[in-house]
């Protein structure tokens, strides 16, 4: 019975994966490895694929996804790195150092934040953070210096990273603090009883023991960051522009758009086959990244378990 259930679930997952990759194939086939490279404007390419189908011309497949891949990478790593550091400190504080009353307030708040729908985060971003960046962070000089390629309005990589950090940090904190809490008291007391101070004890024994939970939380949060579409479509500017580190500080306030948000924006135009294949190709890349992410998490966790489990 249980076996059948497991098989059904596996079959379901496999069907989805096969379906997505099958639908994606023509787009990869037409572009080859160039699919992943840069070349031209992604938005214009999508437009071209769409109009060619609408005008009943020969289907166009040309698509170079680098800007949106790069944008996804930047936003995800930025947000995951920021929230990892923040979440680690907050969860160590919650579990080990916070007085009881702070803990009883903080924990439900964190869990609530973890469950707030992303549209709401997007709304806050659009109403608060984006105008702030537009007015106080970006100077007229900045605007002028890159005006020939992109317009800076506040909808930016920075806004995306910050709001995304706010969104995934609670998730990480929840998983991290569960992990830290389940570290056996005896190990911590053993270290304290040897005269090692609380910080060192918690760092060397607590955090070290909870490393698998840190990995699990990071994988979960990264998956959510990769898949986030609505909020990022709202605050990052909605142009498939690749922020250029060579631009200096302006880099952070340049607009961009990740893979998932691209799918969201193009999803009304799925009717044309060429369009559908292109969108599915983007989806396939996302799916592949998610699979790789889980795999990496699993691989990273293995050596950490070496000393932990009783066998």
């Amino acid at each position, binding site marked *: 019975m249980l076996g059948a259930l497991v098989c059904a679930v596996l079959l379901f997952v496999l069907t989805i994966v096969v379906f997505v990759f099958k639908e994606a194939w023509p787009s990869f086939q037409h572009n080859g490895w160039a699919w992943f490279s840069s070349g031209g404007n992604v938005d214009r390419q999508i437009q071209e694929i769409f109009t060619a189908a609408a005008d009943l011309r020969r289907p166009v497949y040309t698509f170079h996804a680098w800007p949106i891949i790069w944008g996804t990478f930047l936003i995800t790593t930025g947000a995951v790195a920021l929230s990892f550091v923040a979440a680690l400190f907050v969860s160590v504080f919650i579990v080990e150092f916070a007085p*009881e009353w702070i803990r009883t307030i903080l924990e439900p708040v964190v869990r609530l934040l973890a469950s707030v729908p992303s549209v709401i985060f997007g709304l806050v971003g659009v109403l608060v953070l984006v105008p702030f960046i537009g007015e106080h962070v970006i100077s007229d000089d900045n605007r002028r210096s890159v005006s020939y390629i992109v317009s800076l309005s506040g909808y930016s990589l920075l806004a995306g990273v910050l709001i995304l950090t706010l969104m995934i940090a609670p998730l990480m904190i929840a998983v991290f603090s569960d992990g830290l809490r389940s570290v*056996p008291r*005896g*190990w911590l*007391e*053993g*270290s*304290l*009883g*040897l*005269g*090692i*101070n609380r910080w*060192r004890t918690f760092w*060397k*024994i607590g955090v*070290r*023991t909870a490393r698998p939970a840190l990995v699990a939380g990071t994988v979960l949060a990264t998956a959510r960051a990769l898949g986030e579409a609505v909020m990022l479509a709202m605050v990052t500017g909605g142009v498939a522009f690749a922020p250029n580190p060579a631009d200096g500080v302006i880099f952070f306030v340049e607009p961009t758009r990740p893979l998932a948000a691209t799918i969201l924006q193009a999803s009304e135009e799925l009717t044309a086959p060429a369009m559908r294949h292109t969108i599915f190709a983007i989806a396939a890349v996302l799916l592949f990244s998610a699979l790789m992410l889980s795999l990496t998490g699993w691989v990273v966790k293995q050596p950490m378990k*070496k*000393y*932990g*489990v*009783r*066998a």
Partner: protein
Amino acid sequence: MRFVTPPPVRRLPLAGEQPATVVEPGAPGGAVATSGRRLQASPMAVERMTVDRMSIAYGAKVAVDEVSLPIRQGEVLALIGPSGCGKTTLLRSLNRLTELTKTASMKGRILLDGTDTATLEPTALRRRVTMVFQQPNPFPMSVFDNVAYVLREQASRRPRKRALQGAVQSALERAGLWEEVKGNLAHPALRLSGGQQQRLCIARALAADPEVLLLDEPCSALDPISTQVIEELIVQLREQVAVVIVTHNLQQAFRIADYVAFMYLGELVEYGPAEQVFGAPRADRTKEYVSGGFG
């Protein structure tokens, strides 16, 4: 501040000092049960800690009630008493581990070399007064790292592995674990047997080089031969370290302790030299308990 009164006999091996009855670990275990006291009381006992009318309660429940005791270097003090009488609680209060329990509240004073332990930094106190717990709690690391942990943490600069080797080996030898683990020091400590884990914890505590060693039933999971190794270690250690041991094994208390404290329901019923407590107990409670144990 730490060494207002320098410990007089610490780390000074007495001339010609040899435990009188070093039994080969391989000797028949049956001898342990019948052998009497290991050593005569040490000639140079120095008071290191003083427990002064200590009361400890968990919430409203009083676990230790107005206990006063001296703890001397050069002697082994055994805490005995039925389960739940507050032995562990008293032991934990000696290096302020009780503070980690949120509900615990304390009254009274504990002095270490004349200084109230409440005024010491807990970390500094625990460095000098080190605890081996009732449940073996090796860290989820290799055997080597378990012992090296405290050495690394106490060093101001992280020492090389090579530099630690000697200290780790000597600690493991003294705890009687070296022969079993020397082939594979990278073995995960949690995969040792319960008794090996407990000896590893003792080795870990020895590596910390304490002045007072608190042992909470260190032999409860050990076979007779390992028990004997630990008992000999304790007897040897008492010249350099003040040793307090909690034990349910009255034979063991009789074998190794110079002084015995009998606790009952949180109260210290009787405290005195081992011969007196076991031979001519003053309180009826003690008589009952001791005769039960030897009956």
